[in-house]
């Protein structure tokens, strides 16, 4: 029932200075779009419905999609578009690469965004002109 489309976007298509590719800090900002058929399973549908009501709830939707794709659970932003039979959720997140002598940090533990304790690094999306 759940269709997941994965797409890494060119950094130039996004806004903000933090959307560049691999840099000297050994980090890379990735945009990944998940296309979700609706109605989805209950946990996912809860996050879709919450996101529709409040943009600040969308982060949990992206976090769940990332977790299900084993990409960690800590998006820096989440852009969502609702369509008649699908929802497109684009998660932006940071990965650490091991090139050129960079240390490999990984993504941290794969925990549920809603079940886990609140992250000290969670951030508001409201009011930002660069996020949905």
């Amino acid at each position, binding site marked *: 029932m759940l269709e997941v489309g994965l797409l890494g976007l060119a950094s130039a298509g996004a806004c903000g200075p933090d959307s560049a590719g691999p840099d000297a800090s050994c980090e890379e900002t990735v945009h990944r779009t998940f296309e979700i058929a609706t109605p989805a399973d209950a*946990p996912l549908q809860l996050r879709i419905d919450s996101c529709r009501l409040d943009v600040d709830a969308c982060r949990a939707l992206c976090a769940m999609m990332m977790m299900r794709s084993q990409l960690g659970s800590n998006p820096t932003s989440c852009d969502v578009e609702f369509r008649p039979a699908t929802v497109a959720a684009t998660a932006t997140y940071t990965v650490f690469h091991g090139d050129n002598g960079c240390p490999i940090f990984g993504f941290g533990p794969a925990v549920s965004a809603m079940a886990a304790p609140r992250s000290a690094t969670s951030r508001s999306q409201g009011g930002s002109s660069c996020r949905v």
Partner: protein
Amino acid sequence: MSRLIPVALVLAAWSCADPGPGPAPGHPSPEPPPSWGVPLTGGTLLVTHDGRHAVIADPDRDRVVTVDLTTRQVVADLALSAGDEPGRLVEDGAGRIHIALRRGGAVATLAAPTPGASLTRRAVCSEPRGIAYDPATDQLHVACSGGELVSLPASGGALPGGGTQATRQLRLDRDLRDVVVVGTQLMVTRFRTAELLTLDAQGEVIGRVVPPVVKREVGAGLPVAPGSEPLVDAVPAVAWRMLATPDGRLVIAHQRQVQTQLGMFPGGYGGSCPSGIVESAVTVVSPGAAPVAVAPIAIGALPIDLAISRDGAQIAVLSAGNHHVALAPAAALSAPDGNRCPSEPAAAWIDDQLGAPSSVAFGSDGALLVYYPEVPAIVVHSGPAASGGVGVATTIELPGPLGYDAGRAMFHAQTQLGIACASCHPEGRDDGLVWDFAELGLRRTQSLGGHVLRRAPYHWSADLADLDQLMDSVFSNRMAGGAVTHSERVSLGAWLDRIPAPVAAAAIDPAATARGQHLFESAELACTTCHAGELFTNNQRFDVGTGGVFKVPSLLGVGVRPPYLHDGCAATLADRFGACGGGDLHGHTSALTAPELADLIAYLEAL
């Protein structure tokens, strides 16, 4: 893949645009929806004796929903009056379902858990909380937060005008919670003190016990300074839920205050144990024996509900703070607490990913049902005992709108320190505890109930000008809760402001209350110089001889909020007029006679 690329590019381009005042078509709303829902309280799910139906009291939507567990279909959805806030349920011998209406002040009776069954109601008290059925007398017993314990016939219908029809009404201590029938006795918990009262058949209180104090390590894993006490007390508090096991024991899910010193620095509310300064606890009371603290079954904030399987083989403890349900064999009820930091409990974890659960119950076949108020839905975990795990999960979605409120979710979500706002402010009020702050000394938790937005600035020192500052200082910083989102900031105050102050029970002596009001409002006593207006506070700071300059607290619901004053030095309202109350700097009361003081206290009790 190629189909997605243009869409994603459009999204990226759109995201740089000004979002404007409203949601674009197909996009999330930029502002959160109106405030919704009530504080989580637990104990609102029941499986009927025959195992055929689940009955859900939905305090957020003011209705009672019945699910046929065979077909897994909703078969009845009965609306109550707005604001009734249905809570605990109990089934009587004739299959009627009785529901305590927490704010409706009544017991609603569902004639049967079937389609078309009638729903009647009988007034009982201002704030009914626990409800029990006594098959020997065919009576209901209702425990109320105002201190009333009301007994009434289970078979009674509605009286004209919704009258009480009580066969007995006792006046006990305030803040009553659950009631359980054990033979001819009634066992009644008090919410914040976690005290357990035993009443004989005549209604006399013949016993009082509290869950045991246990020890916890100071700075677990850290060196202990020479000469300092390596262990601190973890004292019982906030008894969320009490049930009886099939073999006659009582099981209480409650909290403990780990008595370490708190700091106002980042993470300053962290405890010495990973479970935090407020830990979840289970205490077992066997007939004729002292209460026993058992080893932790659930690790997570807000143990608001528990369930015991009908064969007594399984126990489930719900942690609303981390959205988990712990499922353990009954042997867990016999493993004593080892006075060590809780670590890995001997329990399986259920995490249905449906937000904070609020209630659990076992079916007749051993299935575990978990209610999720936000969706709303119940999830049936079939055969947990047989599978040795959490079983096969089936979600039954219930009718009703999504219950989304960023403020409510934030209030109940535990931070990485293992505590939630609701840990110290259960049900949006207070825990009745005094906390030791390294920088401030002792501070009694303040209640959030009763127009909190009109009571700024906050805290005893009034150092936090508004709720925004409080969220940043307390939640983000001291509780290590992370940055507060825009929606949480907008929603929390609106949600908290809807939580009422406790409602006082009817005055025992209305004449004394009236005399006390006259004294309170008199120019001679000058109480209303500071405790003025509808909220009984002018929101100013004064030195009234209690050891510093403190904000004038609201007196709404003051009778149910001992201990008193900023450091909790007065155990009772009478003590507030004693040695630590500030004398005549704090109201000119020294010349009052004993009867006058009693009248004044009677009035305060009625606020």
